[in-house]
């Protein structure tokens, strides 16, 4: 379990990024961390992985504190950065031998762990090739393999599927799911919302250093059910105009011939449909239920461009 309590953090000569931030990632969860650029994701990961120390509050991994049990935490954790964090001049095997050598506790099982990491990531056949000759997908898999060397109980993956082909993406996502099913806690950051929706059981959406929403993915998407009414595209605009006021009152909005939003009370839906009928506006489609993660993300973080 990762627990961040009352975290205070600011970069020199910058306003505070985190002020009393709380975040809890349960043991064994596959946790999606979302946020636009500059939201504070990278700093949050740096705090979780011990690369940075908060000015206030505490970070605990499985109950252990970085201030007193740093080595014990790092032995059970793996951080897989977005960059290809290895030596391209060396072969996959040489890279794994180097990184495995940095875990003193692994001494006896080193060869076995390397073989297992190669096998898990499907790199056994490529072990002797210099990493610089690898495709993007193979490099991502080597990046992952290095992270598996210490059989971590917690893996933090930072955009592990950027710039790779669909097959490699499928392989990596399947591997992550398998690792999670094996009991490993996984923190997954990505800008690909469909990936998060596909594999994560819990998510947190962060922006401007604040957790805007966190919890089980089903709850987050189901908490604010989305109503969507598709109107007959032949309906003239003049017929639609008078609807605006009553839609706003119910928490709905119209964009072209689509009415959508989170109605305060779904029981009012028949009344709305009745009004449409009275104005001779035909409905061509209707759905009500969970919204998409992307929709919820934009609702919380807005759509304006970030640096």
């Amino acid at each position, binding site marked *: 379990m990762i627990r961040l309590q009352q975290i205070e953090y600011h970069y020199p000569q910058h306003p505070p990024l985190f002020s009393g931030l709380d975040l809890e990632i349960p043991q064994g969860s596959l946790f999606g961390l979302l946020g636009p650029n500059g939201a504070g994701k990278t700093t949050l990961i740096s705090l979780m*992985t*011990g*690369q*940075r*120390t*908060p*000015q206030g509050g505490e970070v605990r991994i499985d109950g252990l504190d*970085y201030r007193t049990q*740093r*080595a014990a935490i*790092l*032995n059970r*954790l*793996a*951080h*897989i*950065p*977005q*960059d*290809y*964090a*290895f*030596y*391209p*001049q*060396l072969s996959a095997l*040489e890279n794994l*031998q*180097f*990184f*495995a*050598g*940095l*875990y*003193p506790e692994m001494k006896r099982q080193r060869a076995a762990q390397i073989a297992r990491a190669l096998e898990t990531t499907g790199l056994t056949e490529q072990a002797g090739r210099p990493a610089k000759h690898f495709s993007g997908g193979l490099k991502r898999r080597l990046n992952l393999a*290095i992270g598996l060397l210490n059989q971590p109980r917690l893996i933090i993956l930072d955009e592990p599927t950027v710039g790779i082909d669909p097959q490699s993406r499928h392989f990596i996502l399947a591997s992550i799911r398998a690792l999670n099913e094996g009991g490993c806690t996984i923190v997954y950051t990505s800008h690909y919302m469909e990936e998060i929706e596909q594999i994560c059981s819990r998510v947190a959406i962060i922006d401007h250093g604040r957790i805007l929403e966190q919890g089980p993915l089903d709850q987050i998407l189901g908490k604010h059910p989305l109503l969507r009414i598709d109107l007959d595209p032949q309906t003239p605009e003049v017929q639609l105009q008078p609807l605006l006021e009553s839609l706003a009152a119910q928490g709905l909005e119209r964009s072209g011939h689509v009415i959508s939003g989170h109605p305060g009370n779904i029981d009012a839906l028949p009344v709305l449909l009745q009004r449409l009928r009275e104005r001779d506006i035909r409905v061509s489609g209707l759905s009500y239920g969970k919204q998409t993660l992307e929709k919820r993300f934009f609702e919380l973080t807005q759509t304006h461009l970030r640096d």
Partner: protein
Amino acid sequence: MLLSVVQKEIRLVLKDPQALLVLFLLPVVFILIMSLALQDRMGGEHQEQPEVGLWIEDPAALEPELRKSFMALRGLRVIPVSQQDQLLRQLEDGDYLAAILLPKGFPATLSSPTSADTDKLQIRYAASLPMSLRRSVLGSVREALGAAQVRRLFTYDDISEAELQQRVDHLLGRTLVVTRTQGANEAAPPSSVQQSVPAWLIFSMYFVVLPIATTLLTERQQGTLQRLRTLPVSGAVLLAGKLIPYLVINLIQAALMILVGIYLVPLLTGEALQLGDNAWWLLPLILAVSLSAISFALLIATWARTSEQATTLGGVSNLILAAIGGIMVPTFVMPGLMQQIAALSPMNWALEGFFAILLRHGGGSQVAPEILKLLALSGILFSLALHFYRDLTDGKT
């Protein structure tokens, strides 16, 4: 843990042919070129003397003693040439530094103060000959002439050859003068090989800054350092792991360059490097030079923010340290002020250490001060590098 870092660094260097070229081939080339190019311009037991050509129009008319004096001009190697035209052509072609021409009427001028210029001895200098060497050639010729004139004074005395020579030396003032060099440069200046081998070895040892900086900056740029921060390994171990392989590389460089000086330079007509009686002091000296070079490289690599910054800073500072430190221009030809500035360069400390062993055959008392200075500098530089590296690798606020 440390072994893994060392092994990785060695693998990275071995897979970097450019670095190997700079570290091993470049100094060999420099040593060969500079040892051979400067062998006639620097000291040394086998130093070749500058050559001058001698043409005597009528050899039979010249007294044998005088002819012998001209063939043995002090500090010059005299090559007799039978044709005047040929000698002048060779002079213009750069085969000789000067031509000494003795016309048929020259012997008569020795006893006639008012001879015609056409009968007098002529010295023709090569156009490019510096003034100092012109004076040297002229001085040697005048000395030979003086000796011949003095010898004539005693022609009719009934004295032995040894006594005659003693009188000549006395009247020429040779026996009245004792020469000696005072101060730090008490020993003879180094020969070209004694200068070139240690100088270019030190220079190449300091060039470990290029592979060290490239590796470390690549680690930073590729995110590898970020990953290393999340592994249970300290910055000190990672930095020490970078130090050890380059210490080995520096030792191999030293062995190779010394072998080049001993065996390869003489094969190419140069003077062989002599190690002297206290050669074993080379090992601690080389280790101290290596530690200072690697620590300096680590400091630049950890301080710089980009590869370009590190390679430029490393390369330029090495060139400056070499230029002022007596690597490129020997300190003994520098004016006093520049010699004082040279003493500020760690490359000069290293070079003086080598001279103490190779040139003055000195032991601990002469080498130890240079070793201690280098070790102290290494300690300071490594501590600073570790400070910067910890900022990069360890958890920080």
